[in-house]
């Protein structure tokens, strides 16, 4: 039976990551930062006698998901630090020490190698961030946990938000790692870039992450019947994911066509 080289590579990459307590560190950091939140109270007028229980539980579920998305940006810095480390270990470090040549000497395509490395970074960050966010969402109002699951757009919405945040961080760190080809530059440069982006988004450029993730959370978890209440915000919603996709494609093209190993 022909072995799927991509899956073998992916399993090997994940095994390497799990050998160190990286997932434990990620989980601890993400959970701590997300739960270290400032309390806010949302108020809503309640029309007595004219408000079905289903409406109230949905409202509570939406607010739980909204606050989860809102506070997910608190995990941005740990995401940036560890994303830089993973991307550096996966690409720049292996280019520098020649291990990538060993990978390429196997009967496997460059696409499989790139995808397995990229996906291993993504999966490690995404699964731990999702765990922390789901715990937050369900512990926010534990009595409403059942309705969080019954309102079938809440949990997938939280996972989509976690995926978008992770996608952005991984795309930037992997690009830096590949184009710099040096572990030190990759590690420092990618984290510095993500940190500067964070500072700019806090100052005025709210279309940049992580402020843009809070806006995405507002778009996704709205009380109106339409899942995207602010239609005119739709282009903004897709700006960061599109940018991340372009970076990823450029990294793949560079890796598969242009990368020369001495």
């Amino acid at each position, binding site marked *: 039976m022909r072995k799927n080289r991509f899956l073998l590579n992916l399993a090997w990459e994940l095994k390497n990551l799990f050998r160190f307590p990286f997932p434990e560190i990620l989980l601890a950091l993400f*959970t701590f930062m997300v*739960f*270290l939140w*400032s*309390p806010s109270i*949302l108020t*809503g007028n309640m029309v007595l006698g004219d408000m079905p229980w289903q409406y109230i539980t949905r409202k*509570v579920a939406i607010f739980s998901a909204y606050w989860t998305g809102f506070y997910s940006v608190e995990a941005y810095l740990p995401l940036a630090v560890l994303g830089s480390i993973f991307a550096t270990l996966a690409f720049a470090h292996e280019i520098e020490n020649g291990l990538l040549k060993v990978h390429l000497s196997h009967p496997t395509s460059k696409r499989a190698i790139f995808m397995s490395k990229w996906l291993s970074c993504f999966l490690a960050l995404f699964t731990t961030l999702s765990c922390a966010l789901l715990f937050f969402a369900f512990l926010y109002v*534990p009595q409403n946990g059942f309705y969080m699951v019954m309102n079938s757009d809440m949990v997938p919405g939280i996972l989509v938000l976690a995926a978008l945040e992770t996608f952005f961080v991984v795309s930037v760190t992997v690009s830096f790692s590949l184009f710099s080809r040096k572990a030190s530059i990759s590690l420092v440069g990618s984290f510095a870039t993500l940190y500067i982006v964070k500072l700019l988004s806090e100052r005025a450029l709210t279309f940049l992450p992580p402020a843009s993730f809070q806006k995405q959370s507002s778009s996704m978890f709205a009380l109106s019947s339409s899942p995207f209440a602010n239609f005119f915000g739709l282009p903004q919603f897709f700006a960061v994911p599109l940018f991340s996709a372009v970076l990823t494609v450029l990294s793949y093209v560079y890796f598969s066509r242009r990368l020369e190993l001495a």
Partner: protein
Amino acid sequence: MSKARLTLRTGIFVAIIGLAILLANVASRGKDAIASWDYSLDPNGMGAQLLISLNYGGHEIRLNAPRAFKGVLYILDYEGIEKLVADGTITPVVNETFQGSTLIDFTLDRRGPYAVIVQSNVPNEAQVSASLLEKGTLRQDYLSDSEIIITAGVTIAFLASIPRMGRFLKAQTVKGSIGTDKTQHYLRRNRPIHNLDDN
């Protein structure tokens, strides 16, 4: 990864989540929160506001009403709201009668959504404004939740390591008696050869 090792790691993950929640709870105590809203009350009517969500601890609600206003403040928890919606019964956790402007202190023992209802007992329309202060404190409910999560994680990890402990103990038992086996093995290998000529 073997099943036992996966279960052990899962237990460790759950325990780490519980520990992180505990530390975050300790680190974030002392932060107050404020909310304010208005009621437009019909004669002898009722106004309600849904707050999502209030936390464990002390709260202070200030009601600004005309001097002649008489009313009752009810605060309902999650189960109380469900009962109110189901059959109209009010089962409050806080029930305070007041006249004019007033300041009411109350303590909640669990976080969650709460309904703040003002019942008017005057035959006139009335405007009442409310502002609520949530006092920052160590959240005992989060503390107990994190303890439950840590216990669950440790239990899962312990159960996963039972087969491993069993194998370890078994290995120790065999080791303890290995001297006897070694001796027998030595004797089997090195038993003296009887020379028939010696007899």
